[in-house]
């Protein structure tokens, strides 16, 4: 008896009726540390043992709500905050479309957590060893017998008394069960370093391999063929062509689509004489001219063409466009300046189309007239 401790006294019964009576008797005798083992759940045993209803459904309720809330939050965050996208004309937070996934996550999280709680809290997982394991008692109650055990640490535990009670209830066998202290560990093993290390290693392995698979492996050859394709990309080198460039030059004399040569290059006088404004000062043309003037011209010339640059001296101020000289210029002369540039003013032919240049001229004329209005201009 040096290495063996008494765990309990066990009684084995042959019929379900006997075990119900035994449980009722043991309960009414005031024992608290006892247990009934049956090969399948017996109706009425919970009330015979006076057990309180299981609290596990509340775990399912709480985790289910949390799962639903976090699923909804996650979908709202991804689709409304992190990367807002309008899909199928739906709002960013499309509740009806989110219901299916919310439901699935609710069920998944609640099911998993209820079972995990049962395993860890009720079954005391990872404690897998128990004094009853491998005993003759358990081998009988797992097949066709019904057993009851009263634990030795019950305050009312008394060997002779229990033997007598079990026998009077009709037990077919009554015997004690012993255990070895070094084999059985009653302390919760969930906090043992071994188990915690196991969880940590499992976590690192699963998350690490998932990360590597999804974020690294899928971008390594051969899975990167969408990125690396056998084609020439603009501005890339090519050893196939003599000039070492991947891009080809257009055939000599090629005219770009829509290109019209300017025939008054370096001929301002001729431009002033021969070029006529094809646009009428309609509302549309003036609006167009105003928009383009305000974008491209006003930074230097100012919103009112007074040469009041907004550039604060970073670029030389141009003269006012209200001067006698500019006012007397023909539209063609101004067109020439916009097209060719003049002094430090660069050409604006790439920013403004021909039509836009003429519209800007119309707007400049309107500005000039506004500052030098005659009496007859008043309505």
């Amino acid at each position, binding site marked *: 008896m040096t290495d063996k401790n008494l765990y309990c006294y066990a009684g084995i019964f042959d019929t379900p009726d006997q075990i119900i009576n035994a449980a009722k008797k043991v309960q009414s005798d005031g024992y608290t540390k006892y247990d009934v083992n049956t090969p399948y759940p017996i109706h009425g045993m919970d009330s015979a043992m006076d057990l309180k*209803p299981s609290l596990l459904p509340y775990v399912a309720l709480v985790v289910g709500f949390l799962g639903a809330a976090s699923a909804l939050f996650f*979908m709202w965050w991804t689709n409304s905050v992190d990367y807002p996208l309008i*899909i199928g004309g739906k709002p960013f937070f499309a509740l009806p*479309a989110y219901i299916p996934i919310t439901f699935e996550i609710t069920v998944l999280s609640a099911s998993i957590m209820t079972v995990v709680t049962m395993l860890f809290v009720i*079954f005391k997982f990872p404690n897998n060893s128990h004094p009853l394991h491998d005993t003759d008692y358990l081998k009988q109650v797992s097949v066709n017998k019904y057993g009851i055990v009263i634990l030795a640490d019950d305050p009312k535990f008394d060997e002779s008394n229990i033997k007598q009670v079990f026998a009077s209830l009709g037990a077919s066998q009554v015997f004690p069960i012993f255990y070895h202290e070094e084999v059985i560990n009653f302390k919760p093993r969930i906090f043992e370093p071994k188990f915690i290390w196991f969880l940590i290693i499992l976590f690192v392995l699963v998350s690490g391999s998932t990360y590597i698979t999804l974020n690294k492996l899928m971008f390594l050859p051969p899975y990167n063929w969408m990125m690396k394709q056998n084609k020439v990309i603009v501005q890339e080198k090519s050893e196939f062509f003599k000039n070492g460039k991947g891009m080809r030059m257009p055939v000599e004399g090629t005219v770009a689509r829509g290109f019209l040569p300017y025939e008054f290059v370096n001929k301002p006088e001729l431009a002033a004489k021969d070029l006529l404004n094809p646009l009428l000062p309609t509302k549309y043309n003036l609006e167009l001219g105003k928009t383009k003037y305000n974008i491209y011209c006003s930074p230097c010339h100012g919103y009112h063409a007074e040469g009041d640059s907004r550039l604060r001296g970073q670029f030389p101020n141009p003269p006012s466009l209200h001067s006698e000289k500019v006012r007397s210029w023909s539209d063609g002369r101004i067109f020439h300046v916009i097209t060719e540039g003049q002094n430090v003013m660069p050409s604006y032919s790439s920013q403004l189309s021909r039509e836009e240049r003429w519209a800007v001229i119309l707007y400049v004329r309107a500005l000039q007239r506004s500052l030098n209005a005659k009496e007859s201009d008043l309505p």
Partner: protein
Amino acid sequence: MNTVDYTQEVPIVEGRPTLQEINELIAKPLDTKPDKKFYIALAVTLSMLTLGVIGLGLSFYYGTGMWGNNNPVGWGFPIVNFVFWVGIGHAGTLISAILFLFRQKWRNGIARFAEGMTIFAVMTAGIFPLIHIGRPWLAGYLIPYPNQHSLWVDFNSPLVWDVFAVSTYFAVSFIFWYVGLIPDLATLRDRATSKIKKTVYSLFSLGWRHSNRHWQHYEMVYLVLAGFATPLVLSVHTIVSFDFAVAILPGWHSTIFPPYFVAGAVFSGFAMVQNVLIFIRKIFNYEHIITINTLDRMNKIIILTGSMVGYAYAMEFFTAWYSGVQPEQFTFINRAFGPYAWAYWIMVSCNVLFPQLFWFKKIRRSIPIMFIIAVLVNVGMWFERFVITVTSLSRDYLPSSWAYFKPTFVDMAILIGSFGFFFTWVLLFTKSLPVVSIAEIKSVIHGAQPTHEGH
């Protein structure tokens, strides 16, 4: 006690076996070496599986062009097979969860096996969306995770709902199945003689010792899981039907789809479970556990769901006519009398006409006839998915893009391979785990529950 009492229900387990006999009978396939017949069956399923693996290998090497999918029919066999196999799984959850909630004790004999079939069917179904995306190694993109593109999946898409529904369904079915296995694994542990078996059973029975303080929580968890699995199983095929119903294609865009799909899934699943159980009860001598009464009840569910499916077929025609939408009307006339009329009439005869024979009690209780009818039901249900998927796509709004879908050899190989995959798992299951729940069947045999004298 000795007089016949007609107020009593038909016994679920016939012949009053003792608890010990139940134990021995259910554990026997696990203790004995498999016989020759098992190896022959395994050889057949593995050959089918190999054919499927060859088909998949060709598809991966040469690309999805090996399939019959063409331009209007982008959803060919893979989607047909996916819907078919997910549907097969539904019977298992219906038996184990819904019939549990309805206190149908006759389910105890067949629940474990049907749940196992659910898991294998969902595994089989899971192959098809993965191969249908064309580059299965990119399947990770189906899951929302913080990726290098800073992109998330589209939570408004039914295809993403499907990912969540099917994976949740698999996970919850597996948990439900495993929780049911724990007491049985403990029973097997306590009778195991070999050291390896004992270690394995000890590990997976999680220290179970049949304690009533555990049974109390265990039964509650089982109830909670059944309560979750019930709406889940309805949601899964509903969401599968959304894949179709949310599209605007005539023949798909229909609000009848969710109940219609769920009924069809239960219908085909029960037929498959019934087929396999007929073999199981014969081979393992479970005739008194999986009784003819159980099969009779299953056939009643087949006729119920079959009639629901038949009603849906009729109602689809009515809705098409009543809606006044021309493309919709054309689609249904085209289904019944167009180039796929052969498939349509196979579907109608197998799903609507033959199951009606189950109105006769003699046919419901005749094993050869019920077997043949259930096989036809599965043929019909496969063709139902084919008709829905292919006929609608092959002739949509734009007549200039119409095309006829013809499956290729590779399509057929993958279809046969899916059956091989499924039945290989079923065969391995019969030899590695108890196919009938020992604890559940013990709790319903005669004299298992206390009489509560005087109550």
